[in-house]
């Protein structure tokens, strides 16, 4: 198992958000999480990547490192990233003054350092990034602009996928990676995710729409509502939600 979330209860600013959430993810799987606005999907993603604002009151999260399940809460946010957890933000953050290339380079080498792999020289690294950017239809000058600064909604999402491909994590938690994308951009982003996924990593897609899941086929679909996974199933669940909404839950 790659990730095991057990009966997770968490709150923020005194408000209970997750109310006993359980979820198991194995390498090689694609999971989709759907659910009404405000049900706690982004909260789950932030707790997994170590956001300090949330207080976990009960339950645990285990994550596989070197074939052993480890308590995720013992790792700092940056250590989780270095161990292969990647969060694609619902609202990617603008970081003025830090260029895309600079961030990618720092991140990549921080991860390599932890993994005991030789860091890459800047020149060589630039080439790798340029090639991935081209694959995603990201123009070269975007690499030298401030991270997400002035990017359109869709460009920001594409940029998250660029980071995904460069950092090559083991668990990609992509929070509404499809929101704000035009049809072509959705195809590009899906192409990126499909290129990324293999039998050694796992993808979690948080989404509101079937469209993304037509491009990236999930093995499991979960409905998160009121802080819990209420139902799990396959694509048929997506069709049902598409038709009936969340009222039947």
């Amino acid at each position, binding site marked *: 198992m790659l990730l095991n979330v057990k009966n997770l209860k968490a709150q923020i600013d005194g408000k209970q958000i997750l109310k006993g959430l359980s979820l198991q993810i194995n390498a090689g799987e694609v999971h989709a999480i759907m659910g009404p606005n405000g049900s706690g999907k982004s909260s789950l993603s932030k707790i997994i*990547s*170590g*956001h*300090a604002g949330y207080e976990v009151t009960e339950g645990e999260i285990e994550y596989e490192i070197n074939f052993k399940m480890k308590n995720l809460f013992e790792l*700092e*946010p*940056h250590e*989780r*990233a*270095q161990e292969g957890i*990647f*969060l694609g*933000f619902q609202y*990617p*953050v*603008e*970081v*003025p*003054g*830090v260029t895309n290339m*600079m*961030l990618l380079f*720092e*991140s990549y080498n*921080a*991860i390599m350092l*932890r993994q005991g792999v030789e860091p890459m020289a800047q020149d060589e690294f630039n080439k790798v990034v340029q090639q991935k950017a081209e694959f995603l239809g990201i123009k070269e000058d975007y690499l030298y602009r*401030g*991270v997400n600064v002035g990017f359109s909604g869709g460009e920001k999402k594409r940029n998250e996928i660029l*980071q995904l491909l460069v*950092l090559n994590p083991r668990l990609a938690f992509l929070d509404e990676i499809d929101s704000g994308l035009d049809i072509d951009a959705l195809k590009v982003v899906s192409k990126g995710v499909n290129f990324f996924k293999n039998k050694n990593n796992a993808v979690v897609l948080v989404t509101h729409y079937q469209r993304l899941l037509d491009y990236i086929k999930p093995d499991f679909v979960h409905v998160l509502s009121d802080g819990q996974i209420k139902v799990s199933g396959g694509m048929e669940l997506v069709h049902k939600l598409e038709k009936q909404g969340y009222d039947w839950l």
Partner: protein
Amino acid sequence: MNLNFSNLVPNQQESFKYTPTLIKQVIEKGHFTPLGQQTDEYFKYQHFMNSLVEQTSFKDFYTPEQFWMAFENQDLPKGFQASWVLKDSVFCKDKLKRAFCWPESLKNFLLGNCDKILKINVQSGFVGDLSLLMPLIGSGQGFILELEPGAKLSLKLEYAQFGKELFGSSLWVNLAPDSELNFLETVRGDVFSARGLWVDLEQGARFFHEIKAQGPKYFRNQLGVMLLGQNAQAHLKGAFDQQATSFCENETWIGHQVPRAYSNQEYRALLKDEAQFVFKGHVKIEPDAVESQTHQLAKALFLSPHVTANLKPYLDIECDDVIATHGAAISQLQEQELFYLQSRGLNEQKAKALLESAFLEF
């Protein structure tokens, strides 16, 4: 401590462009003798000059004195001229009037104990650069810089503080039509100084000024810009990286006297520990200065609860047809930005350092 820089006695036979080795040689051979005596002060001064070699980031540079000597030895790069102007000459008094915003008491401080000031002329057609090192060894030092029409100069200036006293210096710049000055001033941590810089721009002249302050003990940037000719442009910026009890005051006066001139200023201070930063911007647009454009922005980033910033951008517009913006902002490191960087594998320290240096790079 009252060393008089203008009394240093040069050895006429040497080439006086400062290079690290040359400085050492000059000092070892004792070519400079303040007041002609080898006093304790002199040895301190020797030691100071020695340390300049290690301190400065320049490869080749001149102090104002050295610039003069190079001129006398006909050793200056082509296109430069040098002369001395007496402080009580009509020319200098006239310049001093330009320092319209200095209180009388400060004007005397600027005159200090030097009786003359170096004047550097850059001739038409010149395109090139110059690095100046200003040893702060007394008040009233500085220089006058005149760019002739069309000349283009990149000037780098660094200060080196001798002793612990507060010293004032003054720089007067005149930019003739269509000349361009790119001016980078580096102010290191040991500096304890008030510096006045007065710049007159004639038609189509361009002035780019940048201050990089690396945590000076005290630095006061008094910068007066007079836009005297149409289409003159002044681009001013400053990055103050301050920690401990560093105290910086940044005060600008910009006068738009004629139509269609442009001024832009952005100053940022990164404040740690108990650092203090003051920004006062005065922009005055005279009644005739139609189609002027002016922007001013001051930002402070607070990294400790004990820092202070006082940001006062001020506009005085007596003309309708202008574009003018001004703003001030105090912020802290953004949690979201920090978390975003951490979620990409950077530890907190690294993420903070990256955001801090990003704030000062603009």
